């Protein structure tokens, strides 16, 4: 049966399209033109059948309407007679002009033209765009991953005028294979039909493992800016596609929940150059990109490709920003952090022989052993350790921020960094330590490495480690059995390195001991000789005393040199550690602290004054009835706090002698001893684990006060605990700071109070011990010396753990 609608369309195709399909359809070939109608009219036909019947109808009309294209002809060479139904249709469609005809046909077509709709619903968009891409850096990385997947050799990220809202612009362009018009329509704007899932590798000779599996990169654009233009060109087409998106329109359409009804403008124009690639131009960036942001982007991008898997063909990332001198010109993003390391090892695996290398510390060195491949799959693991001098070498060589560069162990899958790939925390301590390298340190072992000392690169493959899976927010891995085993394995390997480093430290001490032993022997020898000489003189034996004395003098000089050498070496060793301590000293003058207190008091007086003034001015204003009550209470509370602050100040400012260097282990033991009766009464167990040789130049009273305040809080938190009660303090030096962690296994602190506990207004009970200023004073205290206190996740099952950082003054001139 002939479908009338098909005939109508055939007429339209024939009349409005000659060599090219009708312009209205915006298709470059006939196949695509037929496709526009297939969805609505296929009536069970396959695409091929459908196309054939349309072509047939078109041919009929072509031969009837003109001679330029040979359609159907009869034996005499005249156009074939049109079937009756065709004539019937021709009769009424002929009367329409081109535009009216198009209006008539339009409802049958699904257009691949100017107005494109996203092929998914709003909720999907929000989930993917807003929740999976958590920050701007992640967004950038996702877009660069797309370039990688497109076989780009070079990606350029160009920021300009990011300090101004109106002129800010970010261009991301690459020389990859680009997207055709159909790609944009059918792939880029459609979720779930991701071609990347089918093709795991990109076309040869690149054969890259596809990394942007979820196809969410495109939504990253939304995270970056308001307006976006995407230019795209593929090699085989002579056209340049331009898609414009204005996200603001989506926002305004949110209420109607018809996201996919918002038009996107897709244009395509003739462009005769055999090049390919994608250029994404984002304007009206959502926020300012500071120098630090660009640095962070650089850093995260540098981690995208493992420094050990040099790609061929290459994949280069360039970054520039018009706002900053350092980034004025396009800068190649490199990852060459590893060449400065002090110690390193590499372990590999061999899939065919079922061998996984591991390292083991054996007596005096690290050795490799072969094992069978673990459940989590074969891995390659490079670990680099940086000691203090290596770190300063590193800083000199790279001019990069060391703390940002040396940041622990990362996992690469098929040569590309995987979770967590773009941390947006600028604060090192808050960074997610996925493998838990730093967490181990809270348990107080000083010979354990921190993520700041090592760079590790673990390489896995998707095929052999299928159960190492990224979590959906891409900030962690799923806790599968394989992942846990991998994590344990990596930590065990780090531990082998730790054992080796500990051994090396011991060796250098032993050598010193040997030197001193030799000096001691020399001395004994010398004493013996003198004794002998003495006897000789006494017995007046006929020996040339002068000669013997000369020999002795020579020996004495030798011995003296040996002893001096020994002493010097010992002194040097001690000086080194003492120097270290001195370098770590931080002297905050009383004056500085007084200023801090003055500041607090003035701020507090301002609080009181404004409240009093308010109550005075508006006491009969019915608008403010409730406020006045609250303010009255706050005034009383604030005044109480003020008097406590003054009391607190006077108790320790009396004696100048509190300001001198002290050993922190002694100080902490002292405080714990003074609490002994309370511990005994409440049956609280304590653990103190403090590095012995730490001397700091600070006020011992202020230091003790910090410990006491934390102690009081812990004792309170332990009151209602029935089982084993524990308070634990550890102290160690990390880089240029003393780190104390203070833990208890008490009732803990609810998450919502995490920030509130430092508030001067915050109190649990009125009868708390110590100086009553609590954590507010501790925090102020620490801030005055550029330190900090933070409630970190507890090492114990319950309770609270505080991490306190006392930074050391690096530059002696710095005040």
């Amino acid at each position, binding site marked *: 049966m002939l479908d009338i609608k098909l005939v109508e369309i055939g007429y339209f195709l024939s009349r409005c399209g000659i060599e090219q399909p009708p312009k209205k359809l915006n298709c470059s070939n006939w196949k695509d033109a037929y496709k526009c109608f297939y969805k609505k009219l296929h009536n069970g036909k396959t695409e091929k059948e459908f196309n054939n019947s349309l072509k047939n109808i078109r041919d009929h009309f072509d031969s009837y309407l003109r001679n330029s294209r040979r359609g159907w002809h009869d034996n005499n060479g005249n156009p074939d007679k049109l079937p009756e139904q065709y004539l019937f249709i021709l009769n009424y469609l002929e009367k329409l002009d081109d535009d009216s005809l198009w209006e008539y046909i339009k409802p049958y077509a699904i257009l691949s033209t100017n107005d494109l709709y996203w092929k998914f619903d709003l909720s999907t968009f929000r989930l993917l765009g807003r929740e999976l891409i958590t920050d701007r850096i992640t967004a950038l990385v996702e877009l660069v991953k797309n370039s990688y997947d497109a076989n780009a050799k070079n990606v350029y990220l160009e920021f300009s005028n990011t300090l101004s809202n109106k002129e800010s612009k970010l261009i991301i362009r690459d020389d990859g294979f680009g997207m055709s018009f159909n790609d944009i329509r059918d792939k880029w704007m459609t979720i779930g039909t991701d071609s990347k899932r089918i093709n795991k590798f990109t076309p040869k000779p690149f054969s890259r493992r596809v990394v942007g599996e979820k196809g969410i990169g495109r939504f990253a654009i939304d995270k970056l800016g308001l307006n976006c233009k995407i230019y795209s060109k593929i090699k085989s087409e002579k056209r340049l596609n331009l898609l414009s998106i204005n996200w603001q329109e989506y926002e305004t359409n949110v209420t109607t929940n018809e996201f996919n009804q918002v038009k996107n403008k897709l244009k395509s124009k003739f462009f005769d150059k055999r090049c390919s690639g994608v250029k994404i131009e984002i304007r009206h960036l959502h926020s300012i990109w500071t120098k630090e942001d660009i640095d962070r982007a650089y850093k995260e991008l540098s981690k995208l490709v493992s420094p050990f898997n040099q790609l061929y063909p290459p994949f280069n990332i360039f970054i520039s920003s018009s706002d900053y001198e350092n980034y004025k010109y396009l800068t190649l993003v490199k990852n060459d952090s590893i060449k400065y390391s002090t110690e390193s090892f590499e372990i590999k695996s061999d899939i065919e022989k079922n061998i996984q290398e591991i390292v083991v510390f054996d007596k005096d060195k690290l050795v490799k052993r072969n094992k069978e491949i673990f459940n989590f799959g074969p891995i390659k693991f490079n670990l680099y350790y940086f000691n203090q001098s290596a770190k300063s070498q590193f800083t000199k060589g790279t001019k990069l921020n060391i703390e940002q560069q040396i940041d622990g162990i990362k996992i690469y899958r098929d040569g590309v960094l995987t979770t967590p790939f773009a941390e947006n925390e600028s604060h090192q301590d808050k960074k997610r330590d996925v493998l838990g390298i730093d967490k181990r340190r809270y348990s107080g072992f000083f010979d354990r490495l921190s993520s700041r000392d090592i760079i590790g690169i673990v390489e896995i493959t998707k095929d052999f480690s299928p159960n190492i899976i990224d979590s959906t927010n891409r900030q962690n891995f799923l806790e599968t059995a394989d992942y846990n085993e991998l994590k344990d394995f990596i930590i065990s390997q780090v531990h082998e390195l730790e054992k080796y480093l500990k051994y090396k430290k011991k060796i250098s001490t032993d050598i010193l001991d040997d030197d001193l032993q030799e000096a001691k022997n020399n001395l004994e020898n010398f004493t013996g000789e003198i004794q002998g000489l003495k006897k000789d003189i006494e017995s007046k034996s006929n020996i040339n005393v002068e000669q013997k004395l000369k020999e002795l003098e020579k020996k004495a000089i030798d011995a003296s040199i040996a002893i001096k050498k020994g002493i010097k070496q010992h002194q040097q060793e001690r000086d080194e550690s003492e120097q270290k301590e001195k370098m770590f000293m931080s002297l905050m003058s009383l004056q500085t602290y007084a200023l801090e207190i*003055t*500041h607090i008091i003035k701020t507090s007086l301002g609080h009181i004054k404004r409240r009093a003034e308010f109550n005075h*001015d508006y006491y009969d204003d019915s608008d403010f009835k409730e406020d006045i009550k609250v303010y009255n209470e706050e005034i009383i509370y604030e005044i109480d706090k003020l008097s406590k602050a003054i009391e607190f100040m006077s108790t320790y400012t009396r004696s100048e002698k509190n300001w001198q260097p002290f050993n922190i282990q002694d100080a902490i033991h002292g405080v714990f001893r003074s609490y002994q009766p309370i511990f005994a009464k409440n049956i609280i167990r304590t653990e103190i684990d403090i590095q012995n040789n730490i001397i700091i130049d600070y006020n011992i009273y202020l230091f003790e006060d910090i410990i006491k305040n934390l102690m009081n809080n812990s004792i309170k938190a332990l009151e209602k605990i029935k089982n084993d009660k524990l308070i634990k303090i550890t102290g160690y030096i990390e880089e240029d700071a003393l780190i104390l962690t203070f833990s208890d296994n008490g009732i803990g602190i609810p998450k919502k109070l995490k920030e509130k506990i430092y508030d001067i207004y915050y109190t649990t009970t009125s009868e708390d011990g110590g100086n009553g200023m609590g954590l507010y004073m501790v925090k102020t205290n620490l801030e005055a010396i550029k330190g900090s206190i933070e409630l970190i996740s507890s090492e114990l099952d319950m309770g609270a753990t505080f991490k306190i950082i006392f930074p050391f003054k690096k530059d002696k001139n710095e005040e």
Partner: protein
Amino acid sequence: MKNNTEIIIIDDVLKEDDPLIKVLRKKSEYKEIKLFSHSQDGLNYILMNLEKDFIVLLDIDFPGEKNGNQILYELRKENKLIPVIIWSAMDGSTGYDFTSFINNHALYYVKKDTSIKEIIFRIDAAYHYLQLDVASAINRWLLLQEDKKQILSVDSAGTKYSAEDLITEIRKQTSEGRKIEKEIIELTIDLLFREKVVMND
């Protein structure tokens, strides 16, 4: 509504329920009162919305963040017109150096323990300053222009300036911006006095 000006308070200690904010919101006629606890957030907001009228109340001490000094310096790089009132517990007795605040055109200084009335008095004064300041007035006029790309001025070297360009010159108080300002003042005075002569006839 008296005016379109937003009051931006950048202070890490102040809370939303402070009497100052309450009084400003209920008893004054400023369009909006915005409080930022993080100095960078406040600065970003201002820089991203330079087309709005602002009066800024800026604290100095932000532990671990950019201090008031740095914030003012960075703001002034982009805009020299916004009135900024320094509000701080720091004063001469704490040995704090205020030189850079003055050099970066802070309008007033009020102490942390100043009364609400005094603070509002200063804010109102800043508002009047904003209204009477010639550069701010030109800036407002330029912002009203519909076509900001249209060439409004050509200097002796032949450089063309659109409304958009002029806004930048005026805000940053470049030599060109100041020159235009000066010319407008001279022209205005000239016109006013000419009018007077005519009116007196």
